[in-house]
């Protein structure tokens, strides 16, 4: 996907998939409205965002110290901490944990980090069966699809598609009733939860001061995943740290409200090490896999604010571009505004042009609970990649710059624009050459008969 052409074609195609666009519009607006409503009811909401942003910024500026502390405390609580420099290493580590203990049935909580490193495929290749347990991810898995939103994986699907997948997979009678569909998934997964031996989750935030892991879920699948199996593996991006336990509630107040408009997710779980010897249930082993996978490069680069992100998904819902193409058009695990930043940073230059898929309207910035100035960072990313833009574009730009530096050329340009075809009413309907990119979808007004400067010269200057 290195060339803008491919990306443009993919995005153009996505805008015409009415079913997806309608589904995403509906769900995203619902979340935007729910978020706005819940934020309106939260006292001191701007001060909370300020503080959340500041805490996260402070952490990324001082990460080594906090990570070290986190590792020390988590270890003291009985967790085994592993470090993975990249996704392959993380997959290997987890596969080794499974192999050494003979674990064969893994249940997973929804984790974008695990999507990022392709964990399911890697584990299945070693003979471990991996079952997604979040309803949306479960449907993605049985339908051999990909998630298209970091919070709402099947935002692009309607109930008919879910119904067909369920009927095909389980041979059950066809139903489109979301409650029935949910029941089918529950029944199937209950059996899995009784038998599973490995639980894999992401982590919303880790607490440096205490070594605590915080995990938020709505369905209870996350709790099942860290309760039933005898081994729990938590995959934690090195950036997802807050300093103190008392910092957590700031994020808890903002996170669910930003994601879904709920004051709190149904289940916020704080994990302090594995099961204690006299606890009746819970995993006997807790492994924390700390994942770098490019994060330390972001941390030491010019866009490090992006690591403040707590993956709430609010910027996706708020984004008019995302709403009109859905998540798959981005061809990345992380779509939407935050994805347009993260994907080039994590996956390299082939994704550079994602940073251009934005009108910079700033709705994302207003939605972001940690106040990441996403448009500003997108522009910064575009600037870093501008020498890799197609040659023709760079030449045109140079020409344009020259014209704008050269008043007679600027005026000549204005005059030349009058030769564009006029439909008789002052509109160009079919622009030539490059202008087709405009007139294929919109009309272009013909330049005014007299530019402002000519009105000024002839009338306004001397009039008083």
């Amino acid at each position, binding site marked *: 996907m290195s060339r803008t052409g491919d990306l443009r074609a993919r995005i153009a195609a996505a805008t015409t998939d009415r079913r997806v666009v309608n589904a995403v519009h*509906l*769900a995203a607006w619902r979340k935007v409205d729910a978020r706005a409503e819940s934020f309106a009811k939260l*006292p*001191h909401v701007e001060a*909370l965002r300020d*503080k959340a942003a*500041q805490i996260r910024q*402070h952490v990324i*500026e001082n*990460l080594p*110290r906090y*990570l*070290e*502390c986190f590792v*020390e405390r988590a270890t003291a*609580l009985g967790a085994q901490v*592993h*470090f993975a*420099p990249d996704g392959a290493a993380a997959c290997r580590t987890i596969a080794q944990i499974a192999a050494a203990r003979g674990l064969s049935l893994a249940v997973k909580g929804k984790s974008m980090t695990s999507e990022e490193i392709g964990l399911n495929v890697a584990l299945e290749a070693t003979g471990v069966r991996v079952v997604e347990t979040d*309803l949306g991810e479960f*449907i993605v898995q049985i339908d051999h699809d990909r998630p298209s939103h970091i919070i709402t994986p099947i935002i692009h*699907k*309607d*109930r008919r598609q*879910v119904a067909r997948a369920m009927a095909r997979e389980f041979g059950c009678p066809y139903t489109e009733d*979301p*409650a029935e569909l949910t029941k089918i*998934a*529950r029944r199937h997964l209950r059996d899995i*939860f*009784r038998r599973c031996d490995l639980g894999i989750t992401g982590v919303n935030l880790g607490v*440096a*001061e205490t070594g605590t892991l915080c995990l938020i879920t*709505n*369905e*209870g*699948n996350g*709790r*099942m995943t860290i*309760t039933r199996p005898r081994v729990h593996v938590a995959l934690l991006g090195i950036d997802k740290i807050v300093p103190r*336990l*008392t910092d*957590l*509630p700031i994020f808890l*107040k903002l996170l669910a409200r930003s994601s*879904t408009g709920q*004051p*709190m997710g*149904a*289940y*916020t*779980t*704080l994990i*302090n090490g*594995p099961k204690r010897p006299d606890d009746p*249930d*819970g995993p006997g082993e807790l492994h924390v896999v700390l994942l770098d996978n490019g994060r*330390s490069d972001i*941390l*030491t680069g010019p866009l490090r604010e992006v690591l403040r992100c707590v993956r709430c998904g609010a910027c996706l819902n708020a984004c008019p571009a995302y709403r009109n193409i859905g998540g798959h058009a981005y061809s990345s695990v992380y779509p939407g505004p935050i994805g347009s930043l993260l994907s080039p940073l994590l996956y390299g230059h082939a994704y550079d042009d994602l940073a251009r898929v934005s009108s910079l309207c700033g709705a994302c910035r207003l939605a972001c609970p940690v106040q990441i100035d996403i448009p500003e960072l997108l522009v910064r990313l575009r600037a870093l990649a501008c020498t890799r833009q197609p040659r023709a574009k760079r030449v045109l730009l140079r020409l344009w710059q020259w014209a704008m530096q050269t008043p007679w050329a600027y005026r000549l340009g204005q005059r030349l624009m009058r030769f564009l075809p006029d439909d008789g009413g002052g509109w160009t309907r079919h622009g030539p050459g490059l202008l087709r990119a405009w007139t294929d979808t919109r009309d272009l007004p013909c330049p005014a008969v007299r530019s402002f400067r000519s009105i000024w010269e002839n009338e306004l200057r001397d009039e008083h």
Partner: protein
Amino acid sequence: MSTDPQPPLTAAETPGGTGPLDAFLHALRRRTEAAPHPTPLPDRSNAALRAVRPAEELAARFAAEATAAGCVVHRVTEANWLAAAKDIVGSLSARLVLVQPQPGTALTAERAAALADALATAGRSAVSKWDDDTLFNCDAAVTGVVAAIAETGTLVCVSGPAAARGASLIPPVHIALLDRTQIVGDLFDYFDRLANTGSPANINLITGPSKTADIEGILITGVHGPGVVHVLLLE
């Protein structure tokens, strides 16, 4: 800006070990330049950001928020809580009920025993064990909670020698006994308290029933956790 008397953390400044993590942290420390305008760690206290006024009537706020989150709240007294519990169990036509007394909660051993008796006379069997068959087959679980948060209508359940994590999770109905004195106002209050006490291995902040909106954004309750949460609020 930080008013912490000392740096809040006491991370060792020199990497002691030689594993890949230590090497990584060591390298990261070398690569991380000090920010030109360092961002200070904000004050630990969140008192100025509270959502619940200290004077607010906590039981009423809790009941309202928990109800909004989808719980069924019953305001009961010492005199009638048993009858209320029996009614709930009766209305569920539940046969097997897990009753899990836990120190530090309102469900004391005595209350649990009284409840077990009451249920038995009503023809239900109350058990207090945590094998898989019980957890997956019982119709409801009755537990205490260690705290509740008025701001969000949240119940706090923690693991411990007498408390299975599965009890408030696996059965389809969760019935929680809460004493009004256990309610704190704000989420901040709960974490302030938590920061000053030892922490169990597993702490669950439970806000309403298990839910999903994955299919077309339509809210469905009871996905993997309980679809129904009753709170007996003892006044």
